[in-house]
């Protein structure tokens, strides 16, 4: 497969200029997840409103363009979503958001924020 196609302008834009990078004040949920094999790290912070919907989300982290842009893109798509919505997110949902073909070796990078997000929401008492 062609790796250059994976690094398209959208992916690189989210990597170089992430829209959701930073720290939230008084987040309700914080969760850090790392990919032990390659050392990629993301920490997702979220705020919930009274209806248990995500009102804001940010991340800090370091790693490859795939893991970091995937996190940024995912956070763009969780605001206003309920915890139940997030529990239903799966691999295909992320890949559709990214809009690129990911080689098998890099799938773990793309899915790191999904693992982080799903583990984070498990921390919420239902």
């Amino acid at each position, binding site marked *: 497969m062609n790796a250059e196609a994976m690094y398209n302008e959208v992916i690189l834009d989210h990597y170089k200029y992430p829209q959701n990078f930073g720290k939230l004040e008084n987040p309700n949920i914080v969760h850090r997840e790392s990919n032990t*094999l390659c050392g990629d790290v993301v920490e997702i912070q979220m705020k919930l409103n009274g209806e248990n919907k995500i009102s804001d989300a940010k991340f800090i982290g370091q790693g490859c363009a795939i893991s970091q842009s995937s996190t940024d893109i995912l956070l763009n798509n969780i605001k206003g979503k309920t915890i139940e919505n997030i529990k239903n997110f799966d691999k295909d949902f992320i890949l559709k958001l990214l809009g690129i073909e990911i080689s098998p070796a890099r799938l773990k990078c793309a899915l790191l924020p999904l693992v982080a997000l799903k583990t984070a929401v498990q921390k919420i008492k239902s």
Partner: protein
Amino acid sequence: MFDVEKVREDFPILKRKIDGKPLVFLDSASTSQKPIQVINAIKEYYEMHNANPHRSLYKLCEEATELYENTRKKVAEFINAKHPEEIIFVRNTNEAMNLIAHSFALPKLHNPNEIILSVMEHHANIVPWQYVRDNNGASLKFIDIKKDGTLNLEQLNPNSNTKMVSLTNASNVLGTINPIKDIGKIAHENGSLFVVDGAQSVPHMPIDVQDIGCDFLAFSGHKMLAPMNIGVLYGRKELLEDMEPFMLGSDMIKEVTLEKATWNDVPWKFEAGTPNVEGAVGLSTAIDYLNDLGMDDVRKHEKEITAYALDKLSEIDGLKVYGPTAADMRGGVISFNLAGIHSHDLATILNDFGIAIRSGHHCCMPLMKRLGIPAAARASFYIYTTKYEIDALANALKRSKAVFSK
């Protein structure tokens, strides 16, 4: 006369195409490719001689035993050990370190004994000693590196509690070749044992354990043209005889009753279970291959390639190389980062060009932390690496920069 093109003809895998592009294999520090001679020797072993050695009286068993034990003699000669019995077959360097940890360090060291290591060590030469520390109260001391990526030997201050110094001969990240003969002298003057991690040196340069004066030397066959899962622990005979076995069971015993067992002689005391004869056959053929080339010429070729690569990579803006700048101070390993591009992304893009490099922490997480980087890309060389492969690497790195500047 060393002829890289002639060497390449012996490696079938180098004819492979990766998505239509010729394979440029720059990951020999992870594992080397195998020449046809090694592949054929293993095939012939299974077609002609396969049997479980040391056990039976028929012809095949005799042959398998001879093949296995002759490799021991050949390895001993290759590293100039005094006796073949000082060669213990293990799976790899990592297992060799575990053997020393469990059979020597764990029972013999205690608080306030100390083991000296360095920050440039591979996890295989750190984690077993952490286990020793946590289970017998010995402590660990780590020598730092200097700015140029060499060891800060001023910190090698063994005291009366220092029982062991365990260091790598050549770093798998920085490339640094450590002055192990001098270090061994300092360790021995203090009465400490000296363990050498030879994973990145034995395949690449002449090594003489008697000249170095080390007590243990560990290395892996798969990084020196042999198959995976055959490695070597060299240990001085007196030390090995005074050590307890690591793995227990068959072949490592003299006599077993329901009450107890007595141990076999060195080295078989340390080789429990059916051994890896296929691996030994491959290792024997690999050593023949390297001896035919001559280890001095192997080193010379790699030094030439390393110097050429250091030069080519220095022409790329934003590329930072870690470790010594002079090729004669380093093995055929160059780790680097290209500004703004994570090493995993680099490795992915380079794969498009048929180029195989390693990326990540290289099983040296403490060193990554010391260098202040999460990861690095690494190109590593061997007897079949050519200058045009280095050119291909440099060109693909320039292309990666273009991809990321979109």
